[in-house]
């Protein structure tokens, strides 16, 4: 059974232009799924509709049997704890330390007061350290995030998502701001998360080659519609042209 099922999803920001048109797809547990498409295709909007950072207009998003779009405020908070998110610009609180940022991932499990006072249990802190170690940045645990390189910050972002104990991780262009080496490190980590921990990953990517070499499955978006949905080796020149509306030689891929 699939963990996430998106049915007939529609979204428009202004009333006239549809950003997402009848999106249908599903993702199984532990699957690594890439979403590619030109700028403005609606990749970010799709991800943000899933955890309701953006309100969809129509459709269903079934996550573990629940329709996310129907949840009330409190239930939504609970559901969100199961969905981690990783951003292109990391979206950390730059002035706080790495470990503090990681622990932010636990707020979903806390009452207002506990959270405001910043009370975290020893297990939570140990788990945070464990994750930092796993991603190779435990040495920076007490550094402020704005003192880290982009790649290191993104790993903090991943830790923050992982400490939520999510079943699903959404990644919106996680490597677009990174240099080649850091990009590789991050993609490797995401891959191992989905493989070793069985967490489903949906990753928006600009680089076709990266998508091809990492994903189990690729979804190609163009102008709000899915124009490709299949395994990486099925994505040939023809489909790429369909997704991007131009030939591969007009793109600097990767």
């Amino acid at each position: 059974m699939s963990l996430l099922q998106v049915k007939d999803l529609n979204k428009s920001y202004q009333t006239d232009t549809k950003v997402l048109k009848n999106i249908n797809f599903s993702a199984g547990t532990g699957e690594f799924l890439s979403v590619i498409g030109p700028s403005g295709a609606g990749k970010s909007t799709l991800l943000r509709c899933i955890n309701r950072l953006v309100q969809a207009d129509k459709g269903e998003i079934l996550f573990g049997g629940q329709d996310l779009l129907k949840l009330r405020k409190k239930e939504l908070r609970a559901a969100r704890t199961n969905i981690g998110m990783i951003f292109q610009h990391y979206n950390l609180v730059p002035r706080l330390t790495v470990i503090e940022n990681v622990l932010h991932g636990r707020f979903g499990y806390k009452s207002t007061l506990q959270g405001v006072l910043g009370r975290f249990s020893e297990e939570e802190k140990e788990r945070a350290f464990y994750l930092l170690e796993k991603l190779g940045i435990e040495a920076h645990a007490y550094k402020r995030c704005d003192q880290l390189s982009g790649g290191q910050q993104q790993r903090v972002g991943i830790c923050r998502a992982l400490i939520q104990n999510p079943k699903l991780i959404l990644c919106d262009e996680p490597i677009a701001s990174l240099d080649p080496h850091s990009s590789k490190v991050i993609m490797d980590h995401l891959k191992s998360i989905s493989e070793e921990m069985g967490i489903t990953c949906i990753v928006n990517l600009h680089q076709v080659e990266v998508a091809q070499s990492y994903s189990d499955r690729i979804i190609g978006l163009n102008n709000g519609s899915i124009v490709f949905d299949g395994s990486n080796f099925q994505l040939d020149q023809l489909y790429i042209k369909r997704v991007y509306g131009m030939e591969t030689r007009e793109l600097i891929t990767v």
Partner: protein
Amino acid sequence: MDSVYLKRDKAGRINIKAGNRVNSVINWTVLSLTLLTVTAFLFFDYTGLEIGRAIMETAVNLRTMFLQPSLNHFSWGEALFQVGVTISLAVIATILGAVIAFFLALWSAVNLANKWVSKSIKIFVAFIRAVPTVLWVLIFAIAAGLGSEAAILGMLFHSIAYLVKAFSEAFEEVDKGMLEALRSTGSGWWHTIVHAVLPSTSTYLLSWTFLRFEINFSVAVAMGAAAGAGGIGFELFMASGFYFDLREVGFITYAILLVAIVLEVASTHLKKRYFSS
């Protein structure tokens, strides 16, 4: 053949200005300010003005004031104490103002609060800001009696209004992504405020508060002079308005200047230290 996009003026020369609304508004604003300024000088009341003599006298008076400062009506110790009183007035108004403004600003930042609450607070605060501080102080002095309460409350009103504006703008500039990231982990509103908004704006809040403290210090001086709120401003008023003692005015001015410059250097230092990322 000209490209279709190329624009020429009447003389056949190629335009390089866009001629858009922004530029015309800027030009229009500059022009009307200039015209208004010229008009102002036409309409001014010049009675009793002899510019040559006035400038000469000002120079003489400034020289007396700044080159021969002395204390004649009270002692160094008192001067120090009165400066302390003025600083204290500013401190209390600033601290209370900052605390109250912090909460009001949370509810008036559009990215954090309800649109209508935000609008109402902003309008209310704009009104309070429009009333000159000295009026608030005088009104409180009459209604609440003489004393530090009147002065501080009067200054407090304005401080709150000013800081709510500054703080809410700082909050509104908080990186949207950061708020989203926390929201997407399932964090509540207060979690986001305390652990994301506050840490990322605290230096701004501090620096605005400090700036307001600088302002409040000079307001406290002026209130002492205009509304009998006490402190060094009162002494300045007596020295200037009643004794016409320029030397004492000079001394007090130096004292105030010293405090003000220390505050300014401190705030630039604070800024350099915490804002140069």
